[in-house]
């Protein structure tokens, strides 16, 4: 369970999260929506424990994600909005994840295959030299292989071709049972089948929260 209470985050004088409170329970798949700059990414990063809040707190299964980061992150899969320019080769990156998060390399390969990404052909390539879509496919494969109870996606489909999008939604559908899924998106129709709750943010606040 993710519990966000009175969370406030400022950057300089700019209020990116303004006293946000909400709770996500097991079995909820949430579409997190809102205009550019609404604070979606900031909220997600706060859940991951990246930001020191100016007020309020986040608790994940009762744990603070900053103080108990390794315990909390064991159970979270995350794909960021933009794949970062990691210089490690694909193989090394997979090694990093398999050791640090105890993920089977075979499973990453399996999901990469499902996403039509050939890992062995790119094993020695630097991650940042992969194409935008290939990067996202790999990060998605990793997120699925990690088998976490909380899955957080910050617009992961931006660079995916239509076929890859379908593959992704199919895999996600197979994997979402009994989990918390947070999905930042600008296109509700795409994830309609997948989600059972929709949150709309604006100017750092939750402005609507519907369960369907």
């Amino acid at each position, binding site marked *: 369970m993710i519990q966000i209470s009175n969370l406030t985050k400022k950057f300089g004088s700019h209020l990116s999260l303004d006293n946000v409170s909400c709770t996500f329970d097991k079995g909820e798949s949430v579409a997190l929506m809102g205009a550019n700059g609404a604070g979606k990414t900031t909220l997600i990063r706060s859940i991951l424990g990246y*930001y020191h809040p100016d007020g309020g707190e986040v608790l994940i299964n009762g744990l603070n994600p900053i103080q108990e*980061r*390794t315990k909390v*992150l064991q159970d979270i899969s995350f794909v960021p909005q933009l794949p970062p320019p990691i210089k*490690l080769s694909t193989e090394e990156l997979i090694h990093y994840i398999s*050791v*640090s*998060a105890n993920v089977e390399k075979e499973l990453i390969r399996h999901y990469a295959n499902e996403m039509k990404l050939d890992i062995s052909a790119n094993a020695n390539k630097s991650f940042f030299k992969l194409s935008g879509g290939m990067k996202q496919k790999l*990060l998605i494969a990793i997120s699925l292989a990690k088998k976490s109870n909380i899955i957080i996606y910050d617009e992961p489909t931006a660079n995916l071709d239509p076929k890859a999008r379908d593959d992704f939604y199919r895999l996600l559908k197979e994997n979402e049972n009994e989990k918390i899924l947070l999905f930042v998106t600008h296109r509700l129709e795409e994830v309609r089948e997948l989600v059972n709750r929709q949150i709309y943010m604006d100017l750092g606040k939750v402005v609507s929260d519907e369960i369907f």
Partner: protein
Amino acid sequence: MKNLYLIAYLDLKESLRAKWFLVYSLVFGGLIALFFIAGVTESQVMGFSGLSRLLLMYIQITIVILPIFILITTVRSISGDRDNHILEYMLSFPISLKQYYWGKIIGRFITVYIPVLFAMVIAVFYGFIKGAEIPWSIFFLYTGLLFSLSSAFLGIAFFISSFVKSSEVALGIAFFIWIFLLAFIDIALISLMMQQRFNEGVIIFIAMINPMELFRVAAISLFDPELTVMGPVAFYILDLMSQTLFVLLAIGYPLLLGLLFATLGFVIFKKKDLV
């Protein structure tokens, strides 16, 4: 432990592929090669010859260029990864900040230390083949000095990289620290000395707080005190304490300084947002 080793190992692998590492290794290897080609080992200057002289020249140059190399290549390591969102992804896995930070330092330390050490080993080995006598005590002293020189500046570089925002500022700070330690302190102290405001003990103490100056003096501390290269500062210090104590100090103090700065850097790293 496993994660610390993992981070260090991957950082090392990444560095070994980087262009700066190639340049870096070539500079120090090339330096040794140049000395041999120039016949430094055969010359007899100021009373000592052969490999000792070569090693002395090597360390004197290294003391000047190693710090700037380390500073420039490392000064953006943490903040760079933060700014381009590498931390955002890499730290979404269950790795503690402690393991990540210190793993990076260990990996980087091996990268900067091995080439300078290796160049020296090659020199000794080549000298041995050519039949020169090997000055083991100097070799081991320099191994230790380079170790603590590397850690001192690596610590400072990681400290800077924990908070600095832009590359330009980071490089600016790096250059400033280097020039400051290399020359400014000396110039200031010389002028103080000439005005005779402080007694020489105080001035020498201030000079020795500067790790670069300490290394300079330590590098020649094993040579015969009768030699002119010693200079008044070294002479004064060796008069004050035993040679062994001074060597321990020259290795221990910068090591501690590096650790201190690295720890400060870690505290800042932990306090700041990761993206």
